């Protein structure tokens, strides 16, 4: 009985501790972006790694998402004789929901996991300790460029996703299913407001910060994960954790942001 209580207590403590650590981590990392010296090259490099290299996947998945949306949307809308609204249906679901969420999940898989593994290996081979002993702040040196790159890349990737998705929807809806071309764009023009775009941008910014924070913190604290194993196994566990936790958090925050902004 006491044994159970003790286990429960230590489980809770461990997780409260972890959340606290994540919070401090996020705070220091964001602070370190603002603190001088400012170096532009590392940010460009990280933006290339996180953003540019993700563009192809984003385009591919964006196109198919838009195409499927048009297929499904046309099928449903035509039941009510509302095919004319296809454009706005595709655009709104992409801008408000699917664009930010799917782009974030793609980024988690493509860049977040890599980031976690990279930082985890640095931790395990004492490279982070070495940085600290050289009086180089690991937050400034490693984290700040990654966070800056995430904040820059995520909204842009989301925008690309949405634009390509709308084009994909156009190709299927207008090109394949024969919806009215003018109506596709005019309904979009009439129904998409600035609030929708604002929501999309806010979501993508939040998701960007969340992904980078979770993935790099999991790598940074790889030595503190309980039952995480050591060395390579520890890094692999941390990476899995990072991806799962990022995806769950993205969906959770998607709900929260939507309910706040609606």
């Amino acid at each position, binding site marked *: 009985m006491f044994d159970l209580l003790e286990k429960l207590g230590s489980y809770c403590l461990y997780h409260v501790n972890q959340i606290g650590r994540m919070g401090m981590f996020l705070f220091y990392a964001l602070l370190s972006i603002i603190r001088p010296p400012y170096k532009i090259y590392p940010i460009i490099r990280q933006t290339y790694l996180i953003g540019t290299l993700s563009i192809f996947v984003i385009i591919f998945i964006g196109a198919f998402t838009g195409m499927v949306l048009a297929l499904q949307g046309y099928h449903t809308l035509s039941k009510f004789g509302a095919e004319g609204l296809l454009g706005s249906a595709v655009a709104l679901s992409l801008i408000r929901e699917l664009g930010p969420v799917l782009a974030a999940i793609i980024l988690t898989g493509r860049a977040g996991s890599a980031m976690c593994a990279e930082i985890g290996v640095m931790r395990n081979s004492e490279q982070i300790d*070495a940085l600290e002993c050289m009086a180089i702040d690991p937050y400034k040196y490693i984290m700040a460029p990654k966070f800056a790159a995430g904040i820059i890349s995520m909204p842009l990737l989301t925008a690309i996703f949405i634009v390509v998705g709308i084009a994909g929807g156009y190709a299927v809806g207008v090109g394949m299913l024969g919806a009215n071309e003018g109506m596709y764009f005019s309904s979009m023009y009439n129904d998409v407001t600035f609030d929708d775009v604002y929501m999309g941008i806010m979501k993508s910014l939040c998701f960007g910060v969340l992904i980078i924070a979770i993935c790099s913190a999991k790598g940074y604290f790889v030595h503190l994960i309980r039952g995480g194993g050591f060395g390579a196994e520890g890094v692999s566990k941390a990476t899995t954790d990072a991806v799962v936790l990022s995806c769950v958090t993205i969906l959770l925050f998607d709900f929260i942001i939507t309910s706040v902004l609606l």
Partner: protein
Amino acid sequence: MSERPVIEINGLRKTFGAIEVLKGVDLSIMEGKTTVIVGGSGQGKSLIIKHILGLIRPDSGSVQVYGKEMSNIGKKDLKEIRMDFGVLFQNSALFDSMTVFDNIALPLRERTHMSEEEISDIVNDKIEMMDIVGSNEKYPAQLSGGMRKRVGLARALVLKPRIIFFDEPTTGLDVAKSSELYRIFFHTQQQLKYTAVIVSHDVPKIFKLADYVALLNNGVIQGCLPPEEFQLSDDPVIKEFVETTMGPLYSGEMEV
């Protein structure tokens, strides 16, 4: 010249799981002197250094550098103190996705405002000194263990540190290379007058370099003595260490 300790360790204890590794370590490191820590593998020599560097918090006891307690020091003070450090880790801890050149240049690039030419001059100078010319564009994974050590040393010395910590600098080097390295230490210390803390198994060679030798045994420091006194010490633990590592030739029998 009066000697003054820059690092003072008092009653340092550290337990991992059920094993108490450090059981009350007392050690003073004197300014401008070379202190060598010897002792068997797994005794906690690297652990002591990590405590001094502020990477690990003690369970109890105090570690002071420049009179500041490392376990509750502020971030800013800690950074300031570490500005004076030059550290070689036991596993070298090179940045494995950077070339040798970039590894050595990193402290200069991050901590100074030198131009690339100045940095290049200094780095090439260090590379020459450590005899690793021609490896500039190689990555740590492409080097032998001994070469990695020398890159680590070059990186540790590049900013003219005031306190250096070398954890087994010569392990993995052949005899000629390690003698060469000791010559380099000797010269750089004469120039830079740094305080040195060296962990080494290179007995008796290291004794020529040492001002003080401290033996870590069973979680406590057994005497921190000048090398001559260390070799002739009556302390049974030190005596045994000296006999097993150097053979009876150097120890007590010499006087007979």
